[in-house]
């Protein structure tokens, strides 16, 4: 009971709710009583810090966030190896794009000039010729996705334990559809640099060019990779699927289960 009365007195003092006389008596007590001073300090601290609604919500959220497992750390990727892989992919890409496409699809005699380049030239990829069949299609379906396009050929996580690269398809490979279906095949390799990741954690997800946020986006499809270990302890993956996709630009994202960022990305185009 005494505690309760004391607490009430302290609260009234903080709220400036004491009469002049009560205040004087309280302050005299305060100057002589260490325990009362300590109690006053705690009351002030509690009122100040726990009365901040935004901060209270933040603390609740932080507790919730950190109670969930995080994506296990990946060790630092060998930059040299990544650079070599990027160079190889770029060189392959340029060579491929300079080779006439192997296509049976008749090219329309007259195709309208697009208002803007459909696939702006990147340093490591060629542009689509304005008179190509792609140029005649809806440009928004072929517009590069800035969230994913910049990640092509790179290993995104600097502190990762997985380094990976696509060998196939090279970026912007054109796939033709037959009766509305396209045969999508992918191959590549990855290396696990520490024990935090497992080979079965690899995921291959296909996104359209309209996904603006990979971590919140939903993949159009998930490909089941077949994984083999090679003599260098690297893993080779391959996956193949026949799928119905409308003409447009798509991205294959290699990621790790439960990890909501790409490890590496490649792209392909569906044309009719």
């Amino acid at each position, binding site marked *: 009971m005494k505690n309760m009365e004391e607490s*009430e007195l302290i609260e009234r003092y903080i709220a400036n709710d004491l009469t002049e006389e009560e205040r004087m008596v309280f302050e005299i007590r305060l100057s002589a009583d260490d325990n009362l001073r300590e109690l006053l300090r705690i009351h002030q601290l*509690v009122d100040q810090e726990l009365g901040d609604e935004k*901060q209270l919500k933040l603390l609740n959220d932080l507790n919730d966030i950190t109670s969930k497992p995080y994506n296990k750390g990946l060790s630092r990727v060998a930059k040299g190896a990544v650079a070599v892989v990027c160079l190889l992919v770029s060189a392959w890409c340029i060579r491929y794009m300079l080779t006439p496409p192997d296509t049976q699809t008749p090219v329309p005699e007259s195709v309208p000039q697009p208002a803007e380049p459909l696939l702006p030239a990147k340093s490591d990829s060629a542009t689509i010729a304005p008179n190509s069949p792609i140029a005649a299609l809806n440009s928004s379906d072929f517009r590069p996705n800035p969230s994913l396009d910049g990640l092509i050929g790179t290993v995104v996580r600097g*502190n990762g334990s997985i380094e990976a690269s696509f060998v196939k398809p090279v970026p912007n490979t054109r796939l033709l559809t037959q009766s509305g279906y396209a045969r999508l095949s992918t191959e590549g390799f990855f290396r696990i640099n520490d024990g935090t990741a497992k080979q079965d954690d690899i995921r291959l997800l296909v996104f359209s060019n309209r996904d603006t946020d990979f971590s919140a986006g939903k993949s159009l499809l998930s490909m089941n990779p077949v994984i083999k270990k090679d003599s260098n302890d690297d893993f080779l993956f391959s996956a193949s699927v026949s799928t119905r996709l409308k003409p447009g630009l798509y991205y294959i994202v290699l990621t790790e289960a439960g990890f909501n960022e790409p490890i590496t990305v490649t792209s392909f185009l569906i044309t009719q």
Partner: protein
Amino acid sequence: MQQGDRDYEWLEAVRSGDKKGLTRLYQYIMPSIVKLVVRYGGTEEHARDLFQDAILILYKKLQQSEITLTSSFSTFFIAICRNLWANHLKKKSNNHVTFSDEVKSMYDDQLDWHELEEKSLQVRMLYKAMSKLGDDCRQLLELFFLKVPMDEIMARMKYGSYEYVRRRKFMCKNKLIEFIKKDPSYKELTENQNKEL
């Protein structure tokens, strides 16, 4: 997403307390924090606490004033964690762990590291004490701290009288203060404050 955009997004997530953004930051940066902590004898649990402390420090700082990033956000954030962890180790033992102060010194003119660390410690101590209370007491105090009107508190908590609410509030608050006084961080903070006086 470009690095600059990401830095901005994370700074904004901390400033606004955006849960989605903070979750992304947690997923991205935890492996680095765990590595740092484990290398110096800590556990994943310590790393989680460190993440919370660092967010709180930044949040408090951003409520007061702006921060100009002179490095990437993740470098900055890890520097805060490293600093907190070094202080923690210093308090726990006599082993003086030396971390590079290069990044810390980049922000010295913007952050009062000691004050912010103390604030964060205080807030987490209070929050921990609150979480030790029973649901009923915690809810009641939260409503009081958020200055919800008495009538509404009575209705929400299904209490019968104004007097009961008042008495129960003081009882819960005294319980909270008891938990705070028992917390080891409280002793540490009190000693620090006495040293400063």
